[in-house]
């Protein structure tokens, strides 16, 4: 068939489809003005016919002009037909109630590895610095040490002497800073896991050193009662960021029969979903750290109890939430 005949025979349908696309992609204000000759239900059938026309036009070597135009129409149709997805709010709930803890359980080996890499140096440093507090001067800048020491001085009535506006500011600061650490821990996992391992070890060492030192110099009660509330959420989120990062690195080191790229993409989807959860945990942690942790109206024993309760809830959540739903 000659191109002219082809265009004459199918031009009307192509035009109808083009006008439908313009109608869909027009801004809300223009939409009422655009004429729409094609009901939405008929779109998939017309779209498939346009696909067929493109294949024919290519095979018959029609002019590039026509082939390009059909290619463009099919691409736009492809976006509209396969792009739309709905039902967000239901999926968010399902994610929190079942998918997220389920995914963490599926990756329990990586979670344990991440815990060892993070809590190992953390606990070791606490023990080491309680025995030899002066060792901290090999690890941190003396100015920072002085700051920490002043912040957690038992003579302060409130940690850091903050008022309400300061709490909001610190809340924002914790989000900005901690989530950044989590994201870095995750993203650098793509360097064969090396970046993740580095961030887990270095954060574990620093946090452990500060905790051990403050305990050793007698600022233990203000420090531990400050951190106990948000510790579960924050440290848990770091560990999960680490596990997600290790998942990326692991896919590159051992792709298990896939190409490295395919393995990376396959690992990326669950890893990023774990990061959604981790980001949410960082957010909760920042909230607790900003508004609950600095309160001194409660005795340390209450704060320890709350901290322990949150650890316990988190543990139960990851162990049991969403089991038996066949995720």
């Amino acid at each position, binding site marked *: 068939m000659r*191109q*002219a005949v082809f265009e004459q025979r199918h031009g009307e349908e192509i035009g109808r489809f083009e006008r439908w696309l313009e109608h869909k992609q027009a801004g809300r204000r223009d939409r009422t003005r655009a004429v729409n000759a094609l009901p939405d239900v008929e779109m998939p059938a017309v*779209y*498939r016919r346009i*696909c*067929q026309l*493109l*294949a024919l036009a*290519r095979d018959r*070597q029609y*002019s*590039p*002009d026509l*082939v*390009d*135009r059909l*290619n*463009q129409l*099919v*691409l736009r149709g*492809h*976006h509209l037909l*396969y*792009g739309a*997805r709905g039902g967000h709010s239901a999926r968010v709930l399902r994610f929190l109630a079942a998918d997220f803890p389920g995914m963490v359980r599926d990756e329990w080996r990586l979670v344990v590895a991440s815990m060892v890499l993070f809590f190992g140096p953390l606990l070791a440093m606490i023990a080491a610095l309680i025995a030899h507090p002066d060792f901290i001067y090999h690890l941190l800048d003396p100015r920072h040490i002085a700051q920490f020491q002043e912040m957690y001085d038992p003579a302060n009535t409130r940690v850091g002497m903050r008022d309400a*506006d*300061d709490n*909001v*500011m610190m*809340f*924002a*600061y914790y*989000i*900005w800073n901690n*989530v*950044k650490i989590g*994201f*870095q821990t*995750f*993203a*650098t996992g*793509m*360097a064969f896991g090396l*970046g993740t391992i580095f961030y887990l070890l270095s954060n574990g060492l620093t946090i452990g050193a500060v905790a051990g030192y403050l305990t050793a110099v007698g600022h233990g009660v203000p420090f531990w009662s400050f951190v106990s509330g948000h510790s579960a959420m924050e440290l848990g989120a770091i560990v999960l960021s680490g596990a997600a990062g290790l998942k*990326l690195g692991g896919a590159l080191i051992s792709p298990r029969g896939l190409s490295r*790229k395919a393995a*990376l*993409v396959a690992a*990326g*989807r669950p890893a*990023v*979903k774990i*990061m*959604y959860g981790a980001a949410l945990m960082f957010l909760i942690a920042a909230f607790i750290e900003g508004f609950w942790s600095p309160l001194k109206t409660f005795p340390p024993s209450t704060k320890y109890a709350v901290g322990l309760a949150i650890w316990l809830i988190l543990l139960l959540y990851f162990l049991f939430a969403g089991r038996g739903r066949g995720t």
Partner: protein
Amino acid sequence: MLDTTARIGTPEGIELTLRVAGPVPRALAWVLDLLIRAVILVIIGLGAGALGQFGAAIMMLSMFLLEWLYPAWFEVNWSGATPGKRAMGLMVLHDDGTPVRWSAALTRNLLRALDFLPFMYFLGYCAMVSNRDFKRLGDLAADTLVVYREEKPRTLKIPEAPPVAPPFQMSAAEQRTVLDFAERSARLTPERSAELAEIAASLTAGRSGDAATGRLVALANHLIGRR
């Protein structure tokens, strides 16, 4: 092929052709976005400055949101492009040609933290120039492509001439070459365009000089349907 195109298969058994975007337009888009983000921050800063510590909190939250969610939000909700990308005529798609959704958009934007290392997207650049679809590490992990957005098909500007039918059935690539030549011939020196036209000896049939150029332009006129 030297062309920077990506071909994707659709469920209808059709291959779509996309033009992937290289490092330079993407870097420019990033710079534009950086400027836009800076302007937004300055505006927020002017308002928040009066609010003391509470203002500082607003600033820090805005910085966080602008750094991590600004690109992902626009890529999901604004037909695959941040304002910078839109200005450069780019858009982000999944590898199968569908618009990006949250999971892929967040993956590719979280991995900016790695692509940026050790300075100014050096790793990302190395990754881009070592695969054929110009994917940085974030694109590799998220299975996404950055392509040129072509809303309207380009209209060819072919000089008018009496159309001549080609002596044989030309393949699509051959047709395209002749059309591109005819479009460019106006911008070339007559000597250069004659030199190029004479290469297509089977079409110019032994003509030389301006006659060869004229012949190809006449063929091009036929190919775009002038009769």
